[in-house]
């Protein structure tokens, strides 16, 4: 089978694993909902401050639910040493990595879009849905950045003691540029500024994704081979 075929096999396996176990998606879904409620109560949100707080709240939720969800997905991989069935197969570590990046990316996107809808409903803020086309580039690139780093780190932390606690410690600082890029471009778009202004953030997100994708492709094999 080709490189692409292997990647597809991994992604497909992750999706059916998720459909069967329903472990990460449900966890991410409820966590994002819960965080929305908590932010609303804690920040006392109303019609006036919603627009200015939206971007920050949403990207914090994306980052937190994302890291929890990815930690969860790689637990399924470590359970019973299931990932060894891939390690001891002709599938290269690169295809394994990319396959998992794609499935994590899909799961995160699903949760993020649903969070945006709930945000619109709970905070009476339809604007976020109307501006979705403008938000999409930063959303896609930011989520890719999360999955690129998260896939690598979650694979790395799940075998160590207290890995689930250490994962956010490693993940969140590294993705600071993604969060900054996502928040800043969302703020600009919600403020109705021209697209060109958010371009530099799109660029930094793209650079981040590309850079970490290359590094992770080089490094991932060291996580599974000795």
């Amino acid at each position, binding site marked *: 089978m080709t490189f692409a075929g292997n990647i597809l096999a991994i992604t497909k396996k992750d999706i059916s694993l998720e459909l069967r176990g329903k472990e990460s998606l449900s966890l991410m879904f409820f966590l994002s909902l819960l965080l929305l409620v908590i932010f609303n109560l804690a920040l006392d949100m109303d019609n006036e401050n919603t627009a200015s707080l939206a971007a920050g709240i949403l990207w914090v939720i994306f980052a937190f639910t994302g890291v929890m969800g990815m930690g969860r997905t790689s637990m399924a991989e470590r359970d019973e040493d299931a990932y060894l069935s891939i390690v001891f197969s002709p599938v290269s570590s690169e295809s394994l990595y990319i396959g998992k990046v794609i499935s994590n990316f899909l799961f995160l996107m699903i949760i993020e879009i649903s969070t945006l809808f709930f945000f619109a409903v709970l905070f009476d803020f339809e604007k976020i849905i109307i501006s979705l086309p403008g938000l999409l580039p930063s959303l896609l690139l930011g989520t890719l950045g999360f999955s690129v780093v998260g896939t*690598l780190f979650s694979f*790395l932390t799940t075998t160590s*003691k207290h890995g689930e606690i250490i994962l956010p410690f490693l993940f969140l600082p590294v993705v600071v540029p993604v969060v900054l890029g996502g928040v800043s471009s969302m703020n600009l778009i919600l403020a109705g500024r021209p697209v060109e202004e958010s371009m530099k953030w799109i660029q930094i997100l793209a650079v981040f994704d590309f850079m970490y994708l290359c590094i992770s492709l080089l490094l991932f094999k060291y996580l599974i081979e000795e």
Partner: protein
Amino acid sequence: MNMRKIQMPLFLSLLVLIPLDFYLIFKVAPTERVMGDVQRIFYFHVSLAISSYLAFTTVFIAGIIYLWRKNLFWDTIAYSAAEIGVLFSTLVLITGSIWARPIWNVWWAWDPRLVTMLILWFIFVGYFLLRNGISDWGKRARYSAVIGIIGFLDIPVVRLATKWWRSVHPRLKSEGGGLDPVMLKIMLFSMATFLMFTVFLFLYRYSIARAEENLIVLTKRLED
């Protein structure tokens, strides 16, 4: 071991250089007109920052070599340097904050340089948390190398992002400006002293680490 041969002369010269550095900073360097005496902390702050970047660069390079050669020697180098990096970056953050209070009138300034240092600090705290949780030496070395490499490469991106992000918000006054020639010379002297001190500390930490590892290996052999 030839480490000793470097350590001793380093130690002796630091015995002279460090007091001399303090003397230069507190007695010889002119008082800065606007900031006053507080500005003197600048000599430590910048030197510590450069030293911690040296340490993190060492972690990065040693990590790459470890993954390539798989020799645990490089892991020992890496985590010895990482410890010094964490120590020094903590001091950078503290001195930065002491300095910011009278100058910027805040305890903590969200200056891109400080934020970058803080992020780096978090990553390397995570580095040690992860190390604690892994008992297999080979795996611990591989995983730490990966984090060391990624943490280091994160610096320029974080730096750029925080810089742009700040430009959206009101910008705090930037530090420094044109340095008076005496100040510059003392600054360079201070940097050199701290770099030497870093190397000394590193060699010291390294020999302790080696001794610890040898002890573990010997204990294991006894058990066998």
